[in-house]
């Protein structure tokens, strides 16, 4: 049995009278790619804050088996640092400066943005910025990647391209991933396991697995079938309509 990398036990979080999350029990295995989908306001972002430790639960607990980093929807890079310096932030854990330089170079090569090392985030396109942020998040000793709708600010074609890049990067540098998204197709294309959340208070409604090898095409019939199943679980699609 594989060891669990990120685990929650009866996790609940309220903000005053508003209950954002109720009794979430999740067990995420090392190397697993878990997508979390659900309606707006189902506490997905709150869940990621709790995972990272930036926020504390009202009750219950989170057990982290490694270092956590988040990729945000937008503006997660420090705009006053160049791309290289932003990525180098992720390498702070390395004490040897030669190793840091070498790692930085490797990461820049990996995201094919070598020529942009000295550029600042505002000089890049949205997709490039997300790639730099991804590189920063997988840099160094991090091993759990939280992704908070990382591609939702991009146009559809860039989003497709970024999904491909993500799978490629994870192939090179395997990580445990928790991927929050509104985009059900994205979840079906990327994840090993999809957790469907209910409306506020956020609770796990159901979960389903998809074991198609990656990379997957969004039009692969097993991906499309998974989309249909998720929609059914969310109660958006009735089975008779299909």
């Amino acid at each position: 049995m594989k060891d669990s990398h990120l685990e929650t036990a009866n996790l609940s979080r309220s903000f005053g009278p508003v209950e954002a999350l109720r009794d979430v029990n999740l067990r995420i295995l090392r190397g697993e790619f878990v997508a979390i989908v659900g309606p707006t306001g189902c506490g997905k972002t709150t869940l990621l804050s709790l995972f990272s430790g930036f926020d504390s639960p009202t009750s219950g607990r989170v057990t982290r088996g490694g270092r956590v980093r988040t990729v945000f929807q937008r503006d997660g890079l420090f705009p006053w640092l160049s791309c290289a310096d932003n990525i180098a932030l992720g390498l702070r854990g390395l004490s040897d400066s030669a190793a840091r330089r070498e790692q930085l170079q490797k990461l820049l090569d990996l995201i094919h943005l070598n020529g942009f090392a000295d550029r600042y985030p505002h000089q890049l396109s949205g997709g490039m910025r997300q790639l730099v942020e991804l590189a920063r998040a997988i840099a160094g000793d991090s091993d759990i990647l939280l992704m908070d709708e990382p591609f939702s600010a991009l146009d559809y074609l860039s989003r497709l391209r970024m999904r491909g890049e993500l799978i490629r990067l994870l192939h090179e540098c395997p990580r445990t991933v928790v991927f929050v998204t509104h985009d059900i197709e994205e979840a079906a294309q990327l994840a090993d396991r999809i957790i469907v959340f209910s409306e506020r208070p956020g609770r796990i409604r159901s979960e389903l697995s998809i074991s198609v090898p990656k990379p997957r095409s969004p039009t692969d019939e097993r991906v499309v079938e998974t989309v249909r199943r998720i929609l059914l679980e969310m109660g958006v699609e009735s089975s008779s309509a299909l």
Partner: protein
Amino acid sequence: MASNRASPRSRWLPVAVLLAAVMLWCTLSALGLFHPSTFPSPWRVALGFGEEVRSGRLLDDTIVSLFRVGAGFGAAVLLGVPMGLALAHHVRLRSAFSPAIHFFRSLSPLAWIPFAILWFGIGDAPAIFLIFLASLFPLVMAAMVAVDGIPSVYFRVAYEHGITGWELIHRVTFPAILPQVITALRVTAGVAWLVVVAAEMVAGRAGLGFAIMDARNGLRTDLVVVGMIVIGVIGVIIDRLLTGLTRIPSVRWGYER
């Protein structure tokens, strides 16, 4: 901002406006509509300028005024920006001091002139004191408001990368507010330069403001104009120098979104 860049041809427009203004001035004084002592001619002003430069007074007065602004403004920056950061980070400190800061910010620094003279006499000290007061409160406010505007995502990134304490302030908070602080510096330096002239008129024995009052008392309106021109030109130069700060690569983002 980028679209505001002047094309090579339109760069000459300000020069043309300046020339037109000088020509209008020449014409008006040549027409003799006003008495030369209430409306000095450009020629007399030019002669007065030469006289003041040769005697060394103009340079001395300029240095005195610049020193006062440098000292008062410099002290306000060194104290005001950290104060703004501290107030933004401590809720209780902020609620305790906020009304007082608003009060003093709304109070014209010139209202302090009587006390400045009573406490510090005549010379550098009262002028520096007034400039310090004029600059301090706007800078505290600007730094405080800028910290409030920092997206919380930056602090979360800092947390996940183990940036805490002093490092958080100088690697995240400070660079995040720097573009707004630079804008505040420009505005405040302009105010400080206005205040030094007023302060020297009342409580000075030297400086450009004193030079203007002195020239008026000696009925040398040409020298009043010399003082006015020098003050205006230096004001423009100070702003240009501070605008240069906005071209530092690590703050450009604050002006291009």
